[in-house]
Structure formats: C-alpha cells, structure tokens
C-alpha cells in the first residue's frame, strides 16, 4: 500500500500500524527504512511535490514484483513541508524469508530515489529552493532535447 500524508510522518504510529496489520500474516521478516530530514546547509526543513498518478503506477509495479517473491511492500511519503529531524519517507517489506526482505528493501529504496516522481525543495529563509543538485534525471530524460 502507498500512503501519502500532508506534512511529516508519525513514524512510531506508522511502523506500529503496519506491523499490527501483518502480525498474523506469517511473515518472518519485517524490514523498514525511515528517512529523516537532516540539519545541513542551514536549511529549516524540506518540502515535497508529488505527482501521484505516476507514483501510484511505479508503486504498483513494485507491489507486483514483491508479490512474485511472496513479499509485500508498503510506503508512506510526505507532501509539502517537513521540518528538521522529522520524517518524510518510510518504506517496508514483509517477507517469509530474510534474504528476500533485505534485498527488496535495498532495491526498492534505490529505485525510489531514481524513479519516484517526487520533487524536493530546501526550506531556507522562508524560500522554497529546488534541490536540483541532489536530484536524479529519470530514465529516458532528454527525449525532447
């Protein structure tokens, strides 16, 4: 499942909810990744734009991939502003087997960084500045150049 929230994520509550939902599903491994806004470059926080239709399609592809390995994937992300030391991103894999869970979370998080249609902005001096240097051009970029 894909969950989008306005503002920062309630990490403890999300990790608990996901665990509780799958508590009796007989998955032996539950691996989670939590991304938290770091204090650096004098930012006050980060802000995010999300294009949901493509994010949902991208996520559905991963859901099917996980499913084919007997695993499930969940993800939560923030829309809008997230202040320092708050969380903007959580993903999780449940799997019967630990190797599947550890490998899937790694591949999923890396592909998320390269492919999820989400744009990040630094919040600094009341301005919202696109984090161009830290962003990755998506596959087939430059098609119209």
């Amino acid at each position, binding site marked *: 499942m894909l969950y989008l929230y306005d503002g920062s994520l309630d990490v403890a509550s999300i990790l608990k909810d996901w665990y509780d939902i799958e508590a009796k599903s007989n998955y032996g491994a539950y691996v989670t990744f939590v*991304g938290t806004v770091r204090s650096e470059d004098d930012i006050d926080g980060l802000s*995010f*734009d*999300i*294009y949901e*239709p*493509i994010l949902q*399609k991208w996520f559905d592809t991963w859901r099917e991939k996980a499913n084919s390995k007997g695993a499930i994937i969940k993800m939560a*992300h923030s829309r809008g502003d997230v202040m320092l030391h708050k969380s*903007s*991103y959580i993903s999780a894999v449940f799997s019967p087997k630990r190797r599947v869970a550890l490998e899937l979370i790694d591949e999923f*998080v890396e592909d*998320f*960084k*390269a*492919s*999820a*249609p*989400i*744009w*990040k*902005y630094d919040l600094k001096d009341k301005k919202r500045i*696109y*984090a*161009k240097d*830290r*962003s*990755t*051009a*998506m*596959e*087939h*970029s*430059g*098609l*119209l*150049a």
Partner: protein
Amino acid sequence: MVRVEFLGPIQKEVLELDIINLNELADILQDDKDMKEWLDISAVAVNDTLVSNRDFALKDGDKVAILPPVCGG
C-alpha cells in the same frame, strides 16, 4: 488538443496544443526559452506512462507530462 503539464519545479503554465506526436512537441519546446534549462534533463509521460520514443503518436485528449529530475525521501 493535447494537454501538456510541467511538473515539480518547472514554473510554466499548462499548454493546450494541436500536435500529433512528440516530435512536434519537441520542436515547440526547443523554441521556448523557459524550457532551455529543462529539456535535457526531463522525462516525458503520455497519459501517465513514461515514454522512450519521440515518434510516439498523440491523439486528441492525450495528457503529456514533463518530469524534471526527482529526489524523493
């Protein structure tokens, strides 16, 4: 008409264009100085599916999205 949307940090209004493929869109955007910094580094989706071929045909009612570099998380 084809609707063209510019996502994320690209500060540009939606365009409604009478075009039949992505080549025509490329010609139009290459002449648009607002797009100079973006075309090289942006991906293209038609009806919310990423496209890899510039000959991709467009029909009336299609929605094109221009996606600049991403950074979730």
